[in-house]
């Protein structure tokens, strides 16, 4: 079932240092929908993993399972050796949602400080950390603005800064750029890669854009619906650091084609929703 085609990465994935380990995980909702069937996945420290597939393939379900926002019907998940619940309670991951979900009554700086307040960071440390995170996403000049004064892309950058504020090792991102226009999205893709290199986080990124997945990832997990399952895992060997030109290389097109064919093989292309 598990089709990890890279010997190097599968070796990495099977060792004990895997930061995320998913074994035989299924998710059946109370209405009988099989959202995820027998998923297996090992993710090593520092990887950038994309989960791609059409609506209903279980990619968001898988991410929510990892985050302990829902609990699996069967199977085992380990996050840094802990159960998802323990990992959540240990604040092991930051989560970026489809929408920025900023608190409209808080300004940008105060939004980034929210997790630090909830987690009882020392008062003096909160501001310094939040300012550092805003600088990281290039929004230090907007610290005093309210969310409605920012564009959608800027709001999503604030929510990324917020997810990184308490320095989790893992970053879960659920179609964070899905609502943005293509140009903004490509810019943010570049910026996200820079962030990933600078912080050394492990990122698990849900998307339904093939170019986005190929551009960002070290490995792409292709998922198909009815029932939601992992079709295959495609390693991406595009050199780092990736630039705007990366998208114009032959290898980029080959990989995009490979993803597209994997989706078609699992009937991921004929979904009407």
């Amino acid at each position, binding site marked *: 079932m598990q089709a990890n085609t890279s010997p190097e990465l599968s070796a990495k994935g099977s060792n004990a240092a895997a930061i995320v380990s998913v074994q035989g995980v299924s998710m059946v909702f109370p209405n009988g929908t099989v959202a995820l069937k027998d998923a297996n996945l090992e993710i090593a420290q520092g990887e950038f993993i994309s989960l791609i597939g059409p609506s209903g393939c279980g990619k968001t379900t898988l991410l929510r399972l990892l985050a302990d926002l829902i609990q699996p019907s069967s199977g085992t998940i380990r996050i840094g050796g802990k159960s998802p619940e323990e990992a959540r309670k240990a*604040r092991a991951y930051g*989560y970026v*949602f489809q929408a920025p979900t900023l*608190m*409209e*009554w808080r300004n940008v700086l105060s939004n980034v400080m*929210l997790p630090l307040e*909830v987690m009882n960071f020392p008062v003096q440390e909160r501001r310094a950390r939040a300012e550092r995170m805003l600088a990281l996403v290039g929004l230090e000049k907007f610290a005093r603005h309210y969310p409605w004064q920012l*564009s959608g892309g800027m709001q999503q950058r604030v929510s990324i800064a917020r997810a990184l504020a308490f320095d989790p090792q893992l970053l879960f991102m659920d179609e964070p750029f899905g609502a943005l226009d293509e140009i903004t999205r490509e810019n943010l893709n570049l910026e996200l890669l820079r962030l990933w290199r600078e912080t050394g986080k492990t990122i698990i990124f849900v998307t339904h854009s093939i170019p986005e997945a190929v551009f960002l990832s070290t490995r792409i997990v292709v998922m198909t619906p009815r029932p939601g399952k992992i079709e295959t895992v495609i390693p991406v060997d595009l050199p780092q650091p990736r630039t705007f030109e990366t998208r114009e290389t032959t290898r980029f097109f080959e990989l995009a084609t490979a993803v597209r064919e994997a989706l078609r093989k699992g009937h991921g292309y004929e979904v009407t929703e």
Partner: protein
Amino acid sequence: MRISPNLVPMLVVALVVLALYWPLMYLANIPVAQRALDTGAALPCQTAFECATQLRSPVLPSPQQLWNGFGNLMFPLNSPNAIPINAAVTAFETVVGLLLAAVVGFFFAIGMVASRAFERALLPWIVASQTVPIIAIAPMLVVLLGQYGVQGWLPKAIIAAYIAFFPITIGVAKGLKSPDPMALDLMKTYNASHWQTYLKLRFPASVPYLFTAFKVAMTAALIGAIVAEISTISFQGIGKMLAENSRASDVVAMWVIMLSSAVLGILLVALVNWLERLLTPWRRTSGGAAIPAKQARLSRREGVG
């Protein structure tokens, strides 16, 4: 200064109402004036048209009579029989009632959000409490409270609270439930406690709903306070003035007091509006054009698109 943009349209409406009222007033009063002339009453006027604006007990008072009545009832400002002090007493009862209602409303709203069972058990009774005519329940409440030595303005405030807590309960419950499921998930990823989720998310999210509820509740509370004053023994308040002048059949005074209580209502709601602007500075200024303009200015200054 903030009110000035509203003032012109408000005055236009007042003028239109006045223009419609004037002929209506003649229509209503001329038959009465004619009858008075026919009975040979000593009137300082000859024709029914002329007398229509000068009747002692008009069906509808003329604007001139209202103006004079207003002058009589407003001054002296510190007189216990003039409108200012009585309006202040009623306003005080209304505001205290609203604050009491806010406490009770929050209590019920939190209960309703925290527990479906609580909501199902109590909501029908809360609705039922609002269908009892306030004019019927007010004297009984006053008698009951009087048993325990609660007298004066407090029973009126409690009756005001009795009608005001309903819109506040419903509004705050809606506000507490308003956060997006994603925002609730976000708090869960932080492993936030229930209390933290209320403090950092649910309470702030409910503030705009609270102010909307306050505006509805404020007008309800004002009516509650006035009705309570009318239907119980009162020594001060708009309701007491209405009751007195009703007994004296002073139609003009009744109208003046009614219009004054309307103005009081406008002022009290304006107070809520003012507090809302003060306490929710993050909310976008009304008027759609302000936002793109601000955003454009911002983008130019910071060089982003």
